[in-house]
């Protein structure tokens, strides 16, 4: 551990100063994001760029702590995601939305892989980039829908259905990628994927049928002491994540499954007590990702990131449009569903981190950072556009309709008022 090494006194002081400075800066950024009404993730990533290698403040003492914290951040992000879904919701989404899930994967993962190959990246990097462009950010999207007051909209179940399926698919994709990155042979990869498929199926079925029993093993029946519950759930999550990592099945997926397995009041209380921890460690996770990227590499990464954002935003809009149409939503709602799905976020960064840590493709880090950043900014910019469409969904800019109504003379004289 950092704190125990070297000449401790001055080291501890440097460590505290560095960590304090980072967290304080993130706090300021959080306020700025709230004032600008944009999601805070892009700001965290940018902040990371300005710390560390090649940034304005070089971090020495806190690097190791940040690395460990960012891994805990990933685990907390995933366990919270699992806690938010019940096994029943996952199963019913899987039943009703499976075709959309497949379409979503094809439309959004394939362009990422193709662009990577065109850029001359290797196969492993292409598979990674496919994951990066595939998954929309449930965190950013839920926040945006809430902030825009759109949660009651008719298209929202279609949007959330796509997100649920993506998260489920990640439970298979992440183990696959982890095994590939570990440079395992074909058999290792097959085993990892089989273990993942088996674990996911078993956990979901167990949680759907015997959710309460599973919950009772991890946490006390009545959540009398939130402290005991916090420690119990956090401990179980880290434990399972660690074991999953040992088995090369991805720590993140282990955490996700723990979240799904928990249900009822225990899950609700766990969400409450883990939220502040998730906010802290997830922020550290995003910063650390930025930290590993030096600002100088961003500009060269920009063209590729722009190509990715343009292509995969179009394909995401298509996915949302089709998903909403399938649910019988009218045209404006289809466009709203489309633009809602544009933001990429936590999962893209999680996927890229795996590959960057494994030393695959140097440009992957900066490209992903730019890509996530741009996709969120683009999404924020275009969210309101569908509401400007005319009711039938054709795009008629407001100034055109106004001018036409002035120029076009009435075809017939207005009829005399009756009476």
């Amino acid at each position, binding site marked *: 551990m950092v704190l125990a090494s070297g000449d401790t006194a001055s080291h501890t002081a440097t460590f505290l100063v560095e960590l304090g400075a980072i967290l304080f800066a993130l706090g300021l950024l959080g306020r700025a994001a709230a004032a600008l009404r944009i999601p805070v993730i892009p700001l965290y990533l940018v902040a990371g760029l300005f710390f560390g290698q090649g940034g304005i403040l070089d971090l020495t003492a806190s690097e190791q702590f940040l690395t460990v914290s960012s891994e805990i951040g990933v685990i907390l992000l995933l366990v919270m995601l699992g806690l938010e879904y019940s096994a029943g919701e996952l199963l019913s989404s899987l039943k009703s939305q499976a075709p959309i899930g497949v379409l979503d994967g094809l439309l959004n993962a394939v362009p990422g892989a193709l662009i990577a190959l065109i850029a001359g990246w290797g196969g492993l990097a292409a598979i990674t980039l496919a994951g990066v462009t595939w998954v929309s950010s449930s965190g950013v999207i839920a926040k945006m829908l809430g902030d825009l007051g759109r*949660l009651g909209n008719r298209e929202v179940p279609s949007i959330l259905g796509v997100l649920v399926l993506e998260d489920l698919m990640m439970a298979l994709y992440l183990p696959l990628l982890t095994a590939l990155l570990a440079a395992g042979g074909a058999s290792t990869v097959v085993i990892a994927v089989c273990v993942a498929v088996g674990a996911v199926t078993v956990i979901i079925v167990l949680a759907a049928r015997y959710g309460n029993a599973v919950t009772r093993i991890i946490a006390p029946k009545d959540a009398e002491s939130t402290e005991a519950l916090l420690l119990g759930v956090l401990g179980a999550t880290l434990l399972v994540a660690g074991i999953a990592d040992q088995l090369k099945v991805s720590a993140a997926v282990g955490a996700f499954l723990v979240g799904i397995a928990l249900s009822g009041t225990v899950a609700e209380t766990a969400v409450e007590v883990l939220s502040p921890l998730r906010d802290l460690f997830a922020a550290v996770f995003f910063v650390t990702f930025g930290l590993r990227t030096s600002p100088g590499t961003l500009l060269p990464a920009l063209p590729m990131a722009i190509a990715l954002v343009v292509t995969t935003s179009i394909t995401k809009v298509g996915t949302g449009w089709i998903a909403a149409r399938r649910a019988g939503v009218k045209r*404006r709602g289809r466009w709203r569903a489309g633009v809602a799905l544009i933001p990429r976020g936590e999962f893209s960064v999680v996927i890229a981190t795996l590959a960057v840590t494994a030393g695959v493709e140097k440009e992957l880090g900066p490209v992903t950072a730019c890509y996530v950043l741009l996709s969120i900014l683009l999404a924020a910019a275009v969210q309101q556009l569908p509401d400007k469409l005319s009711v039938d969904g054709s795009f008629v800019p407001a100034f055109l309709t106004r001018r036409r109504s002035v120029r076009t003379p009435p075809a017939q004289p207005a009829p005399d008022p009756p009476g």
Partner: protein
Amino acid sequence: MGLKIVSRVLPGIGVCQELGLHDGRRVGVVTRRNGTRDIVLYDEEGEGAAAAVSLNDDEADAVAELLGAPQLVMRLTNQQSKAAAVITEQLPMPYDSRYAGRPLGDTHARTRTGASIVAVLRGGTTYPSPGPEFVLEGGDFVITVGTREGLDGVAALLATPPG
């Protein structure tokens, strides 16, 4: 009435319930897992929100009361105009009553008299909206709402000697 409420499950967020109004507009209530309630007013198309507000627990309760309270008053006033005046009285519970030490449900007061017992006063404490399982005691004051006739009926019922 025939009001049709459409429910939509929002995985990971909560549930949305939507209602068509008499003038063709639609309103919805989103209940989020964390207790936040969003009231949504739909646009003319009926699919997207024209306006939405978020309420926390206390605010949602306050709005529910605002919407619910006038209804109660209206019902009481309707009753008043229809029949004799509705009045409230504190009826004493004799110690030697048949119903002392027995649950409120045993009196069948509402079925027998049409009057409702809305609260019980005991030793300075008010027990509002007692259920049928609430055990009455001698010396209680039973707050009853009803017509003159109904109240007299309840008073007589409570005074029934054991037997």
